[in-house]
């Protein structure tokens, strides 16, 4: 199978249909040269982000701040502009690009891919949401061919409850974060595909919670809650304080 830069590039952006995404992962695992090419393309993104991100360090022009000064609740106002939160996915993408390049240089097979969740969510979401709603962290919960293991529970900056969890299927696995909206729906806010490991234990050590650490840093308002508080929260159907 001849794979063009165009396909690699679309893979990098998670813009291929899921079946092709999976086929590409298999190709990448088998073909070091292809993985290396992907790393080259991915490092372009990292360089551009670093280069054009440099403008973030410059003070925001006063004229612009003034134009927007009437913003309610004073989000920007007098605060330094770097306080403004970037959308989570941009941070994750940056992170992923670097991880890819590093992994290839170190001679590892590509292990993780960012999947940007679409607004339509994915098949089987209702079951995942149900597990998030009712299951404590640390316990694998099996639904058909999918295992959902909540990892931790925390409040995000908006005060909504969120959970990080692992979703394992027969052929792939991903670390995800979802938050519970005011209406009581769980919405996926981050997802990173991780390599399926033969042993769950090895897997835990290899990537564990880490792949989403940067995202968590941004989302979390405070430390995750403990098992007792979590149990109470689940019993009260997430209506705690």
């Amino acid at each position, binding site marked *: 199978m001849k794979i063009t830069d165009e396909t*690699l590039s679309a893979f990098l952006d998670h*813009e291929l249909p899921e079946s092709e995404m999976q086929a590409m992962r298999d190709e990448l695992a088998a073909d070091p040269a292809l993985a290396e090419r992907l790393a080259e393309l991915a*490092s372009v993104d*990292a360089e*551009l982000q670093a280069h*054009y*991100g440099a403008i973030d360090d410059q003070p925001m022009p006063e004229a612009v701040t003034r134009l927007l000064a009437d913003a309610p609740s004073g989000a920007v106002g007098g605060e330094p502009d770097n306080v*403004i939160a970037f959308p989570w996915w941009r941070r994750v993408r940056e992170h992923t690009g670097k991880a890819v390049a590093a992994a290839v240089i170190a001679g590892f097979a590509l292990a993780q891919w960012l999947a940007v969740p679409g607004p339509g969510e994915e098949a089987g979401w209702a079951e995942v949401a149900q597990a998030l709603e009712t299951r404590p962290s640390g316990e694998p919960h099996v639904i058909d061919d999918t295992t959902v293991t909540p990892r931790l529970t925390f409040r995000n900056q908006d005060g909504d409850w969120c959970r990080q969890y692992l979703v394992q299927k027969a052929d792939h696995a991903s670390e995800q974060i979802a938050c519970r909206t005011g209406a009581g729906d769980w919405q996926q806010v981050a997802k990173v595909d991780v390599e399926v490991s033969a042993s769950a234990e090895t897997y835990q050590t290899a990537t564990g919670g880490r792949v989403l650490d940067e995202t968590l840093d941004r989302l979390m308002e405070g430390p995750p809650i403990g098992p007792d508080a979590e149990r109470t929260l689940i019993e009260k159907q997430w209506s705690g304080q």
Partner: protein
Amino acid sequence: MRQEITELVPRLRRFAYSLTGSMPDADDLLQNTVERLLARDMPEDADLTRWAFRVCRNVWIDECRARKVRREAAEQPELTDGQVVDGERQTTRKIEWNRVYAAMARLPEDQRQIISLVAIQGLSYQAVAEILSVPKGTVMSRLARARSALSAALAPASMRTES
């Protein structure tokens, strides 16, 4: 509305920087863009982010490009603004800066806009297609060409810096 625009400003600013190639010009463009965003009503069916990027690009085409800001910037790139002044490190940064700047400046404009929206802003191909009014397939192929060209121009250092 102001609140939403305020949240978009850092992203618009980076986009403006990638279009103009110079920080002062980027801030001029940003200001004009924010003025226009505040002055006009967003089309009812539009998505704010896409609309804002589209406005930014239009302002750039209408005003800044007419004044050949880009060309001037290319002749006199702003190297010192906000950079740390310490001998060797600055020299290295300057070289890096020039490398990326030069590689981006050599891209055709449409490719530069596309790679900026996807690689720097993280927008979907569909969103970029809507912003630039081109088919999604065009976004995909031009983006790949831009990445290939940039990777050829940047490859040695990118491998070096990732270690």
